[in-house]
């Protein structure tokens, strides 16, 4: 059982700190269990579970710092890992950017990241989810490939200056790709949640099957600039790329947030004034831990307000250099939306492209935040307010900054799954679907 309670975690951390002979000592204890099931070709291919419990200790002597980790918890092992971190600190070169450890912090309300239902997922639950995908797929002459991963765990930190923080969390991530057996159609759907009781694998699979059937025999249309309707996953694929609002790189002149002639774009209008993005660790549908790894408390904060850059993230060292208060990075991001449904946006479009999701998105130019990637698993041509036919996939070259300056309509925000974020590892996002004009598709792909 790797999910230690707050008191159990505290006891181990106190023991570790108690062994310290360093000026400063901090310890972190992380544990959890994960389970998964993977299927392809309408059959389960692999399934597994693993657990991990690990104690990390960092000792500082002045500007010298050393870290060591261990996964044995008897007194001798705990003392050993503390001594090892001290030995490493004594051998380490000085790090002029090393900051003193934090004193006691005040954290907000209890976090919403943990769900008992998710922690209780069994191998049978996973097998049923796979079955709920495979059986309906086979009935429609479609082949299912999917992956469900769930996990529960905790993080706790303590130092010899009185700081202690604990948080527990759960996650469940389900992705499914349905391919028609004639090889001409492919559909995808995904859910990423903290609480598994909100997951309906059969319903998610049905959406992917419908997309696959709808996308059969796609026609090629010319690449160029199009009005696009991005489903929430496609929006999130690009919006997440602009959320690294790092103050230091902006100040240093090597960021899309650096200003010509010096300075940063903090306080300047960057995108359409209808764009509002904020972080709130206690947001019900996409919660985050109320503290970040070094123990700094997270708060609700605006990132983009009415299109204006309202926050840059300052780590403690850079904040000290700039004489400002540190601003921890966002643990989650919520983009406000409108009321339009995808159907509403389609009805309101004379000529455009509906995008289910993007794929293989890679940076092209960090200066302008230009990215390239492709549409995948359901791309459709819209004409006179209706979906006319499926179209072949496009490669895009676009910047989320340019895209959000070409905003037409915002849909309803939803918990979005990004294409390559990887289950459970990323930042929880609430992102709306959106309609964008002049989106740049630069070539055609034959991929289904």
């Amino acid at each position: 059982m790797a999910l230690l309670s707050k008191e159990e975690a505290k006891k181990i951390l106190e023991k570790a700190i108690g062994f310290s002979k360093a000026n400063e000592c901090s310890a972190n204890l992380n544990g959890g269990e994960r389970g998964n099931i993977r299927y392809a070709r309408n059959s389960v291919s692999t399934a597994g579970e693993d657990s991990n419990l690990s104690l990390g200790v960092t000792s500082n002597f002045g500007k010298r710092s050393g870290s060591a980790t261990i996964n044995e918890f008897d007194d001798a092992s705990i003392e050993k890992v503390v001594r090892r971190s001290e030995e490493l600190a004594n051998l380490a070169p000085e790090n002029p950017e090393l900051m003193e450890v934090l004193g006691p912090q005040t954290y907000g309300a209890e976090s919403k990241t943990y769900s008992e239902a998710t922690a209780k997922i069994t191998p049978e639950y996973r097998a049923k989810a796979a079955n709920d995908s495979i059986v309906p797929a086979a009935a429609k002459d479609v082949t299912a490939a999917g992956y469900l991963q769930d996990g529960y765990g905790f993080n706790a930190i303590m130092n010899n200056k009185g700081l202690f923080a604990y948080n527990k969390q759960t996650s469940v991530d389900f992705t499914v790709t349905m391919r028609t057996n004639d090889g001409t159609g492919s559909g995808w759907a995904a859910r990423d949640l903290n609480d598994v009781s909100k997951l309906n694998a059969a319903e998610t699979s049905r959406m992917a099957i419908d997309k696959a059937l709808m996308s059969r025999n796609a026609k090629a249309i010319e690449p160029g600039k199009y009005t696009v309707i991005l489903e929430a996953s496609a929006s999130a694929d690009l919006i997440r790329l602009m959320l690294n609002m790092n103050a230091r790189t902006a100040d240093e002149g090597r960021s899309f947030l650096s200003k010509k002639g010096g300075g940063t774009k903090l306080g300047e209008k960057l995108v359409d004034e209808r764009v509002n993005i904020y972080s709130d660790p206690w947001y019900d549908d996409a919660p985050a831990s109320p503290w970040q790894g070094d123990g700094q408390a997270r708060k609700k904060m605006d990132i983009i307000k009415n299109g204006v850059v309202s926050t840059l993230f300052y780590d403690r060292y850079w904040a000290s250099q700039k004489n400002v208060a540190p601003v921890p990075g966002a643990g989650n991001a919520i983009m406000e939306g409108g009321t339009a449904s995808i159907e509403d946006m389609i009805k309101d479009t004379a000529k455009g492209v509906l995008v289910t999701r993007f794929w293989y998105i890679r940076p092209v130019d960090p200066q302008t935040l230009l990215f390239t990637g492709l549409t995948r698993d359901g791309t459709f041509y819209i004409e006179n307010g209706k979906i006319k036919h499926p179209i072949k996939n496009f490669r895009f070259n676009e910047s989320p900054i340019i895209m959000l300056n070409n905003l037409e309509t915002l849909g309803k925000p939803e918990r979005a799954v990004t294409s390559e974020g990887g289950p459970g590892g990323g930042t929880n996002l609430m992102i709306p679907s959106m309609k964008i004009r002049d989106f740049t598709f630069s070539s055609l792909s034959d991929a289904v």
Partner: protein
Amino acid sequence: MAGLGLGGLTLPNYTFGNEVSIEQLLDNPLAVSQKKVLADAALNTAKSLGATYTDVRIGRYLNQFILTRENKVQNISSTESFGVGVRVIVNGTWGFASTNNMTADGIKKATERAVAVAKANSKFQKEPVKLAPVQGYGEVSWNTPIKKNAFEVPVSEKLDLLLSANAAALKGGATFVNSNLFQVNEQKYFASTDGSYIDQDVHRIWPSFNVQAIDRAAGKFKSRQEMAAPVGMGYEYLMPKAEDKLQGPGGMILYKNSYDIVEDAGIAARQAKEMLSAKSVEPGKYDMVLEPNHLGLTIHESVGHPLELDRILGYEANYAGTSFATLDKLQSGKFNYGSKVVNIFADKTQPGSLGAVGYDDEGVKCKRWDLIKGGILVNFQAIRDQAHILGMNESHGCCYSQSWNDVQFQRMPNVSLAPGTEPYSSEQMIKDVEKGIYIAGRGSYSIDQQRYNFQFGGTVFYEIKNGQIAGMLNDVAYQSNTQEFWNSCAKICDEKDYRLFGSFFDGKGQPSQVSAVSHGSSTSRFNGINVINTGRTI
């Protein structure tokens, strides 16, 4: 995907293991004879529980990474991950379990769990596993033929080298510079019921940097990364030899089997500064001259991945995707993957390559085989339980697991483009091009889920006009379709120009695993490729 990079300053110990002292990296906690005793305990336990096949992998995975910026050390970390993975076939179904409890009892319990998993999953089994036969090799060993173990080199020496490179970059006019050194040692012991007991000691090393020049007034910044590759070598890779240096355009030096990081950092600073005022490319069709440390990534994405058999069969459909290179294209014997000069081979034995081992992670002796011959698709990449699908009676020997606690599966071997057979240098190639672009080093990369449409950038771009280098270019990316691209390959330089590109963290599978792989080539020419301009204003 060649996706994972050395992003943050702290790496997850889930992947890399526990943080340990530098001295501990040189310990040898378990003799080969002790490993055999533990492995036999697992093999016998599995057999008694009804397994028809069992393999055991005892692995000790060591990593050390050193990160610096300008004149500062950012992080030095040494990690160790040690444990055992047991894989069994029961009722024709795979089962796998792992443990870091390295006692006979711990391994016995893990074996029992692997058998239980196989039995549970066999209820869903539609087609029993068919393994291609493999020879039992008895007690054998293989080591990466390193000359100097990087883990034995004092950290201070490695740090001095990185800080010297940073100093050279700053002296050359760089505004910022980061440099890193990543070292890996996989100590792997494999035993199976086929009668093999294989002990292997595998080393890899990756020096890297990012040099940046900034023009604050113009609001511009440009980056130049190293012209080195991660390799399957020891520290000797960082001890430069004159005979390994090749002259590139614009005073650039390109490196073969050893790397001069200090020299390259200085050149990088000059090039990054030059990029600040280089002209923006005119979009259109160009003849591309692609240098091996660039072309390797194009080979990786457009040849390496599409020819993975598990992907072709649909096992990766939900994540990385499938492939345009279907079984019928192979079976036709007529599929023109590329032009007649294109010969691409897989080879897990290439010296200095990241994928080089003696035996793969299911005990198959590694070898070389052809994938594309004279432009025609002739083979895929298959492991023991896939060989029968291709009508083969032996595996290609390209099974790999990133650690003892992950199950092994089919991974890309080194996939390389054979050099041209006629004497031909990159200087001659440039002279023969009327309107072209020379690209060196890796850059932006993206390809669709069936590996048709791709777009690549690079580290540095030079315009070629009437056989002459006409200065640096900015905002270059080329787009093509895999089959069209390889059929436009007009000429390949000879073996004197041949060198390896490497991808240290190639990702595949769910849950995702990384592997390291190299791609050799000589500078090659591709005619009439579509180049786009990626410049924008925000």
